[in-house]
């Protein structure tokens, strides 16, 4: 790849690095791993940039986020079953810094404890502001699945919040 191709790639991809990092943070739940995932994903993206430019109707952001997602899942598998097995095990989480607003941590924790396929749709919709179609592209599922996952994920978050509000 020549330098002008690299320039085109950087112009298309680097503006979405915050979005990439945010998704990686929520999927890995860890700042160090998120950085590794993002760097790895960018190199993968560089490799497949030609195929992206040939594709119509996908935004560069959704395209990059799809690669970040797949990289994060690969990373998970490389870690073995442990990361998946402890999905709902609170005690596996490293201690969080004390927050002045305790309810902030509750929601963040509830989100962390969602299964990844639910967590990712929440992040992509509520934080990244993607459309259902784009979320479907990123997660590799039909729009109908996006719709039902999003709804179930929200129901679970509301349940989690209700439970923690009880005295």
């Amino acid at each position, binding site marked *: 790849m020549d330098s002008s191709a690299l320039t085109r790639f*950087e112009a298309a991809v680097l503006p979405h*690095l915050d979005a990439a990092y945010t998704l990686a943070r929520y999927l890995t739940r860890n700042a160090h791993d998120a950085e590794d995932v993002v760097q790895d994903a960018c190199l993968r993206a560089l490799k497949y940039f030609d195929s992206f430019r040939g594709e119509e109707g996908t935004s560069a952001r959704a395209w990059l986020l799809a690669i970040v997602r797949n990289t994060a899942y690969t990373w998970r598998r490389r870690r073995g079953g442990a990361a998946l097995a402890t999905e709902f095990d609170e005690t596996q989480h490293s201690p969080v810094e004390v927050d002045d607003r305790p309810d902030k941590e509750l929601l963040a924790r509830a989100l962390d404890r969602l299964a990844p396929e639910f967590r990712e749709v929440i992040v992509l919709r509520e934080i990244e502001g993607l459309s259902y179609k784009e979320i479907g592209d990123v997660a590799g599922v039909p729009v109908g699945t996006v*719709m039902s996952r999003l709804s179930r994920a929200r129901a679970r978050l509301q349940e989690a919040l209700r439970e923690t509000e009880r005295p």
Partner: protein
Amino acid sequence: MKRSGRDMTHPGFEAQLDAYLDGELAAGDAHELEAHIAQCPECARFRDGRLELRAAISARTPAFQAPDALRERVRAALRTETRGRAPRRLGWQGVWRPLALAASLVVVALGSWNLALERAAGRALADDVLASHIRSLMPGHLTDVLSSDQHTVKPWFNGRLDFSPPVYDFAAQGYPLLGGRLDYVDGRTVAALAYGRRKHLINVFLWPVARRPSGAPTTRDRQGYHLLHWTTTDYTYWVVSDLGREELHDFARLVQQVDSPQPAAR
């Protein structure tokens, strides 16, 4: 939309309502749903609960900003990748990851001392060195020959370089030799040696240059890494690390002591 109360709690209907709130419902369906919510307290409550949740998420779960160091790492990695530089890879992943997480330390010998004296050129070299350092942190890039035995690593370079780099193990001092590899800095092939320090990594790149020895290392700080640079009568060195500067200088002194016919400058 005619739904019984029981139907309204059905996940399919909730999903419809969610899609409506997300602006993802077709206009006709949306109007129908709005009319229904207006006369159905249960659905109105459901809507209000979702709106509250949405407000809570936007208030309490942050979008993160990619750290500057990551941005630089990515750019450097992209540039390295584009340059088509691909050192041989050997399975190192298992040991590599825990080490790399804590970051690393690199000793690099490169270029000429005269070049380093020129500020701009020195900056470009430091960039080059740092890019090599960052690349070495990627899985499989740290070593071509994986051995803690200096008598294995040193001969490995024979026939691969036009010089025979000095290779020493500093395990006794807490900096064990991890292995070696070839790298490419400033337009030429250089030797790179990897060392460990607790969970940190050390990479040594070096090549010969016949210049006057510089004595004490000069220090640069860049993107959270320290870069030390010095020359001996035979080689030019750069040290890159996010390790504490003191430890980095300690390590540099060890290298200087064994690698230079002259007494260590510090």
